[in-house]
């Protein structure tokens, strides 16, 4: 019966079933009911989605993005509160200011490759620190500071000073 209602019977089988249904009152009633149920269900899908749903979802998304930005900002400056980091950051910033000033004054002479590389290392170290601060929640492990920041910045400082 369901295959007949679904239209999945072959033409021959469908005709055969139709003949049987015509001869048997109970089968006919059940078939009529099955067809009415199928038609009724097919007509059901007309519930329109209200517009406010997408507005509420987008408001949540915007708020989430804003929170994420503030959280990254907070973690970065939270990482700066590690006492061991402060002097190194101060030195790195001082070097960048000095070198940048030197480059502005002596704008005819290009920095050597070693100085350029050293400056890049300082910049990447600072960038790494912000990423570390972001990914390690509220703490920056000392081993990370030592290996990933203090040592590279020290090397870079030496190179810059020598040049």
């Amino acid at each position, binding site marked *: 019966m*369901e295959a007949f209602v679904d239209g999945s019977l072959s033409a021959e089988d469908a005709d055969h079933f139709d003949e049987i249904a015509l001869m048997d009152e109970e089968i006919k*009633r*059940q078939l*009529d*009911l*099955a067809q*009415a*149920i*199928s*038609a*009724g*269900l*097919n*007509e*059901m*899908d007309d*519930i*329109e*989605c*209200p517009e*406010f*749903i*997408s507005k*509420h*979802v987008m408001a*949540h*998304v915007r708020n*989430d993005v804003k929170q994420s930005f503030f959280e990254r900002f907070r973690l970065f400056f939270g990482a700066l509160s590690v006492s061991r980091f402060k002097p190194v950051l101060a030195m790195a910033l001082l070097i960048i200011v000095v070198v940048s000033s030197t480059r502005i004054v002596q704008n005819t002479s290009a920095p050597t490759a070693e100085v350029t590389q050293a400056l890049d290392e300082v910049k990447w170290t600072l960038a790494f620190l912000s990423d570390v601060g972001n990914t390690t929640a509220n703490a920056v492990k000392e081993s990370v500071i030592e290996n990933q920041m203090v040592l590279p910045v020290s090397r870079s400082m030496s190179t810059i000073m020598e040049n």
Partner: protein
Amino acid sequence: MAEYQQRVFSFTAHMLGDKAAAADVTQDVFIKLWEHRERMDQDRMIGWLLRVARNACIDAMRKRKVRRAISDSEDFSLDSLPSTGNGPDKEAAASLFRERLAAALDTLGEPHKSIVILREVQEYKYEEISEILSLPLNTVKVYLHRARKALRQELTEVMRHDYA
């Protein structure tokens, strides 16, 4: 995304029989989508959305026990099943039948109800339903057969009750 939202809302509205509850569930589903966006496979998104929506509907039904009200004051006869003819009597009978059908749908358990809605109302293929509900294909067909039979029995009982 608007099309997905429409499909999810329609599914949840039929599951819960309550537009306000369906709006809450739909909203929660898309917020979850946002939270899981980095792990989402675009090709399987609608399946994921409907699966999450179904689980949320089941939870909501357990908490709220939302049911459609059956109108006991109106008569209903198998002889007045909706047909292609017009006229106020036939329209009234058609409207009542739809109401009875919705109530009968609400008596189905899971996953029968979900399968009927996905197959009969939203016209998903058996393979898609199998993926959405994580059920084997033949199991989906068996459940659908049982669900249709249960609907026929429920509506027949309702009619007998009306004439008792």
